[in-house]
């Protein structure tokens, strides 16, 4: 049995209380009984006195010891009498026992004269006897009380158990087994529809009902949240672009698979901190940091294209270099903490395509020479930085015939050959390009007329040598006309320079055409403005 259970406590308290009640009332009863007994004894004694008064009076009157003794002994046989003392005016006649107990004293009058006192009869009550009698009665009373109290207590405990404790224990047990949020409700105990217990149960049920509805609402909400979260996660996890959520100091809080894959691609092991703004991954992190700083200062999203470092062991690093467009967004959470969201779009392919496109623009595929565009770009750069240079336009003579007679392959073969000759003939700083068709252009950093002339004559000599076309077993003779203009001496802008060189080149061509000689002899060069000799 549960020692702190309601029933046990109730029983203990009731037993304790009834014990106290029994004890106190037994004491009280004993007191009362004792007093009653004393009174009763006094009555008894005074009755005894009346019985013996005549004889006692005579004894006292006659001072008769024998008679007095008889009276005293007779009285002493009585239980309530402890001792008897008969006294006359001058002497004590009889005294059986001496005692401290207060005696009951009766006046003895002369048997002949009712007003003449002849002595006193003192009867000492036997208090012990009275006490014993009171005790006996008290004991019996106490026993009866105990029996009565036991019965009342047991009945009270039983009734309390039936009426209060058992329903409460049942309620407690039911409540204990009740899970909040379930439709389970407590039954109202029998006969307690209108009692406090019934009210308690109803209140508990009301509480359970509210809890249930609240919990189910919360459950629906949680489910919605879960779905939403799942979708968000899906969005995040399945994003093709790597996404990273990080603290400003660099700790990575969240990252998706795409980010991991990207790390694998560049051979970097994942760490929780890859430096502020992933600086350890970037080729030029300071650039990003700078741009993020300025963007955030202007409340803008920072974006830019950055090349990632490559730590893979494979040799062709250029091939695998990753370019990403990084978008950095600053997020401030509800608790005023700042986070950075970094999205890294892989733009390597676009970058590669752009590179290829730029190659296509700047290079001639066939001859592996730079294209006209590259030379024009270079010229503009030189002009903008006021660096002097010589521009030479070269047009092949006799090439059209080769194309017509032996086909494009032969023409291409000759173009490639001449290109390589041109490349060999110039210095590192100089540029040679295919200007278009059978036209080439040179840009020489040497600006002395003599130096240019020597270089160009060397080139002319190489072009003028017959080319052996193995496929047709023929020696082909190719010549070239060259027009030269100087920056900044001849002109200050590119178009004029080109035009002057073009004019000079055509002047050479006209001169050679009018000569009517072989292709080789037609070759020659002319300065746009004759040099001052």
């Amino acid at each position, binding site marked *: 049995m549960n020692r702190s259970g309601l029933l046990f406590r109730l029983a203990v308290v009731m037993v304790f209380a009834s014990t106290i009640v029994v004890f106190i009332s037994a004491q009280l009863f004993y007191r009362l009984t004792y007093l009653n007994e004393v009174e009763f004894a006094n009555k008894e004694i005074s009755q005894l006195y009346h019985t013996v008064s005549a004889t006692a009076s*005579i004894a006292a009157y*006659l001072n*008769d010891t024998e008679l007095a003794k008889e009276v005293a002994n007779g009285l002493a046989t009585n239980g309530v009498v402890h001792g008897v003392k008969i006294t006359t005016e001058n002497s004590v006649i009889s005294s059986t026992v001496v005692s401290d107990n207060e005696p009951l004293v009766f006046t003895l009058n002369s048997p002949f*004269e009712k007003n*003449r006192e002849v002595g006193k009869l003192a009867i000492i009550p036997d208090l012990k006897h009275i006490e014993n009698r009171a005790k006996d009665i008290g004991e019996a009373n106490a026993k009866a009380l105990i029996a009565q109290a036991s019965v009342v207590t047991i009945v009270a405990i039983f009734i309390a158990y039936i009426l209060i404790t058992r329903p409460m224990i049942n309620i407690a047990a039911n409540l204990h087994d009740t899970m909040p949020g379930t439709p389970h409700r407590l039954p109202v105990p029998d006969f307690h529809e209108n009692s406090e217990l019934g009210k308690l149960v109803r209140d508990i049920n009301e509480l359970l009902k509210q809890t249930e509805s609240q919990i189910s609402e919360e459950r629906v909400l949680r489910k919605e949240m879960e779905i939403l979260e799942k979708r968000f996660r899906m969005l995040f996890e399945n994003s093709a672009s790597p996404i990273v959520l990080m603290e400003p100091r660099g700790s990575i809080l969240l990252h998706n698979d795409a980010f991991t894959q990207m790390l694998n691609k560049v051979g970097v092991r994942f760490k929780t901190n890859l430096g502020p703004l992933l600086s350890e991954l970037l080729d030029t992190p300071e650039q990003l940091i700078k741009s993020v700083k300025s963007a955030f200062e202007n409340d803008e999203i920072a974006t830019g294209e950055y090349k990632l470092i490559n730590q893979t062991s494979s040799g062709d690093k250029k091939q695998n270099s990753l370019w990403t467009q990084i978008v950095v967004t600053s997020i401030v959470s509800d608790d005023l903490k700042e986070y950075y969201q970094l999205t890294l779009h892989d733009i390597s392919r676009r970058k590669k395509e752009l590179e290829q496109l730029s190659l296509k623009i700047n290079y001639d595929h066939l001859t592996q020479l730079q294209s006209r565009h590259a030379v024009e770009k270079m010229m503009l750069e030189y002009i903008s930085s006021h660096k002097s240079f010589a521009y030479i336009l070269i047009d092949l003579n006799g090439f059209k015939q080769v194309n017509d007679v032996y086909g494009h392959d032969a023409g291409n073969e000759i173009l490639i050959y001449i290109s390589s000759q041109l490349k060999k003939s110039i210095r590192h700083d100089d540029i040679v390009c295919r200007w278009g068709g059978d036209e080439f252009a040179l840009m020489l950093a040497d600006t002395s007329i003599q130096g240019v002339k020597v270089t160009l004559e060397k080139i002319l000599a190489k072009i003028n040598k017959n080319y052996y076309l193995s496929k047709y077993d023929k020696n082909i003779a190719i010549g070239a006309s060259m027009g030269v203009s100087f920056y900044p001496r001849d002109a200050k802008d590119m178009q004029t320079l080109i035009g002057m060189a073009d004019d000079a080149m055509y002047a050479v061509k006209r001169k050679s055409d009018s000569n009517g000689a072989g292709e080789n002899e037609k070759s020659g060069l002319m300065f746009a403005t004759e040099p001052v000799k």
Partner: protein
Amino acid sequence: MKRFRFIIGTLIFSVMFNNVMADNAAEVKDIVVVVNKDNPVEAMSRSQIIDLFMGKYVAFPDGQVAVPIDLTGNDSTKRLFYQSLVGMSLARVNSYWSRIRFTGRARPSVKQSTEDDIILYVSETKNAIGYISRSKLTDQVKVVYPFYE
């Protein structure tokens, strides 16, 4: 005292009424206690008379031995005497004596059959004391306690 006298009077009256057939009414009324003329005792109280006749003392208040004289039988004067003295019938007086007999005390030992004999005995015995009707009173004895009055 008035109350006491009334009670005594009532008793005497009832006794007189009881004996009206047998005795003279005047005799019944007056009883006197008498002693020898030479006895120095002149007057006694009722209690002293009771003490002598009921066996408490055997001497006069002055110390000389007293000899109380009783009447024999069931004499009306005797009856009246005890009735007047202690308010008891003769039967009760007898029972009193029988109750205390074993204690060694004795009722008056000298008995005379008539009042005249008492007068004679008292007049001849110096320390005798007796009772007679007032009507029988002579000069030979001295009254120490009269019941009338």
